[in-house]
C-alpha cells in the first residue's frame, strides 16, 4: 500500500497548495493595510494610519452599517418567509406545486447582472425608486430561494409520522409546528439564515444598480473606490470584515459542524 500512502500525501500537499492559492491574495491584501504607501509601494513600512483614517471616513462607515443592517433584515425576512413556504411545500399536495418549486430556480440561475438591471428598470418605472429599500427588496428575493432549498432539504429527513403522533396526542397545529417540526429543522433554518446573510452581505451587482449616492452598501462603495481612487483604507475595512466574518463562521461551525460529520 506504499503507492496509496504516497498518493494520499500528494493529495494533502495539493489541498494545501489550493489553500495557499485561496489565501495568498487575502493575506497580501491584509498586509497592505499596514503599509504606509498609498500606492502599495514596497519596501514595506509599518503603519496603522489607514485604520485611524478609516474612522474619519463617514461614507465608508455608513456604507458598512447599511450592509450590516440590510443583511440582518434580509436574514430575518428570508428565514420567516422561507421556512413557512418550505413547510407548506412539504406538508401539502396541490396542483402547480412543481411549478412553484421550479420558480425558485430563476433568482439563483439568472446572472445577477440581468436581475440587477431588470430590478433597476422596474423599480425606477413603478416609482419604488432606488436606495436602501430597493436594495433590501432585491436582496430578500435573491436569498429567499436559498433558504427554501436548504430548509426543504432538511425537511426531507423529517418523518411526517411525528407530526401525526403529536396531533393524535391532542396538540394543535401551532403546537405541532412549534414543538415538533421546528426543532427538527432548526439546523436547516440556521444554515439557510447563514446563507441569506452571506448572499446579502457579499452582494455587489444588484446593490450596485439599485444604490443611490449616500444610500450604498459596502461592496458598492468599495467598487466606486477602486474605480475612482483607492487607498489602503479599503484594505483596512476589508481586513476588519474578513476577520469578523471568519470568526463568526468559525464560531457557527463549532456549534453546528457542517461538512465534517457524515
Amino acid at each position: 500500500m506504499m503507492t496509496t500512502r504516497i498518493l494520499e500525501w500528494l493529495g494533502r500537499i495539493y489541498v494545501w497548495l489550493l489553500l495557499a492559492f485561496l489565501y495568498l491574495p487575502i493575506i497580501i491584501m491584509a498586509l497592505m493595510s499596514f503599509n504606509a504607501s498609498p500606492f502599495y509601494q514596497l519596501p514595506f513600512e509599518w503603519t496603522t494610519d489607514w485604520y485611524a483614517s478609516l474612522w474619519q471616513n463617514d461614507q465608508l462607515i455608513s456604507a458598512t452599517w447599511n450592509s450590516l443592517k440590510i443583511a440582518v433584515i434580509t436574514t430575518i425576512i428570508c428565514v420567516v418567509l422561507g421556512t413557512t413556504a418550505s413547510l407548506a411545500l412539504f406538508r401539502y399536495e396541490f396542483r402547480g406545486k412543481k411549478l412553484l418549486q421550479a420558480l425558485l430556480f430563476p433568482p439563483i440561475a439568472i446572472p445577477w447582472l440581468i436581475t440587477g438591471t431588470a430590478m433597476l428598470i422596474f423599480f425606477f418605472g413603478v416609482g419604488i425608486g432606488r436606495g436602501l429599500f430597493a436594495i433590501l427588496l432585491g436582496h430578500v428575493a435573491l436569498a429567499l430561494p436559498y433558504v427554501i432549498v436548504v430548509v426543504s432539504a432538511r425537511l426531507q429527513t423529517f418523518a411526517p409520522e411525528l407530526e401525526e403522533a403529536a396531533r393524535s396526542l391532542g396538540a394543535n397545529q401551532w403546537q405541532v409546528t412549534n414543538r415538533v417540526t421546528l426543532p427538527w429543522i432548526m439546523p436547516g433554518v440556521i444554515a439557510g439564515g447563514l446563507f441569506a446573510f452571506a448572499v446579502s452581505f457579499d452582494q455587489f451587482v444588484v446593490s450596485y444598480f439599485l444604490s443611490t449616492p449616500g444610500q450604498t452598501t459596502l461592496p458598492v462603495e468599495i467598487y466606486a473606490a477602486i474605480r475612482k481612487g483607492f487607498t489602503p483604507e479599503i484594505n483596512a475595512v476589508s481586513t476588519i470584515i474578513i476577520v469578523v466574518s471568519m470568526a463568526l463562521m468559525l464560531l457557527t461551525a463549532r456549534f453546528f459542524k457542517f461538512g465534517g460529520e457524515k
Partner: protein
Amino acid sequence: MRMPRLTALLTATAVFTTALTLAASAAEVHVLNWKGYGADEPWAIAAFEKATGNKVVNDFFNSEQEMLTKLRTNPGLYDVVMINAAFNDQAMSEKLIQPIDTSKLPNYADISKDKAGSPMLDHDGKVYGVPWVWGLTALAINEKSFDKPPTSIAEMWDPAHKGRVVIRDDAVEAVQFGAIATGQNINDIKDMDAVKTKLTSLMPQIKTFWSSENDWNQMVASNQIDIGTYWSGSADRAKTHFKLPVSLVIPQEGAVAWLDAFSIPVGSKNVAGAEAFINYMIDPKFYVEWVTKVGAPVSANTKAVEALPEDAFNRKVMGDPDVAKRIQFQAPITDAQREAYLALWQQLKVDVK
C-alpha cells in the same frame, strides 16, 4: 413559532427598516466631481464648513457620461456639479442644470473675461457655469523611463514603449487626441479615417485605459508604464503631493485644453449653499493653498493666478504664449459626433480582443 416570538421578530424588523431611512438635513451641500479634484480635499471642506455651517457631501464620477447619467437619474440630489464646459450645453439642453445668479458670487468678478464670457457656459444671456480651472490633456512621462523628456506625441507609438502606454478610457478625449496626432483641428475633424488608423496602430502599445487619477499614479508607482495621456493638474498633483516621478510634456503637435466649470443642478435643495461653495472654490485663498499643498490646474480667477509665485508652473509654463499657441480648447460636440466617437472607441476596444 410561538406568537409572541414571531411578533417580536416582526417588530425588530420594523425597527430596523425605519432605521434604514435616512433623513437628509437641509444644510448639506451635495457635490458631484472627479475624485481627488479639489472639492474633496479634507482641509478645504473643513474650512468651508466652518465658514458657512454647510456640510459637504461628496460624490464622484468616472467619466462625463457617468456624470450626466447621475444627474439624470438622481434629480434633486445634487447641489453642485463640476462639468467640463464642452458638456455644459448638453446638460443645459437636457434641463439638468439651472441658471446661476452670479451676483451671489463675490469672486465671480475676478474670473478672466474670456472664460466668464465663454459661449459654452452662457446661454440666452444666462450663466449656466462658473469657470473654475482650466488645464490640458497632454502627455505625462514616468521619469524613470526617460533620460530626457520627449517632445513629440509620436513617442506614444515608439515600439520601445510597447505595453507601457496608457490613455484615458474616454471616447471624446481619445478621438481628439487622435486628431492632434494626425495634425487636425480637434473641434472640426475632417478625416476620421486617419484618426481611426492612427488610434488602431496605438492599441497594441497600450497597457490599459485609465479612468481615474489614482489609476495613473498607482501604475507609475509600481513602474508599470512609461508614458500616457494625462491631465496637467493631475501630473502636478502626482509630483507635488504624491512625490511620484511624473512630469508633464506638452508635445510640439499640441494638446487638448479644457475648461472646468461649476453648475447648479435643477432641483437643488440648497441653492444658497451651492452658491457659497462655488464662491469658495473660485476664491484665491483656496486656490493658492490647493496648488501649494496638492497641485492643481490653472485657476480661471485672474487674482488667484496672480497670487502664485512668478515661477510657478501654472504661471510660467501654462501662461507661456508659445504654449498658448499650441493648445486647442474643446468646444461642445453634437449628439451625432458623440455617437460616432463612441462607436469608433467601442470598436477599437473590441478589435484588440
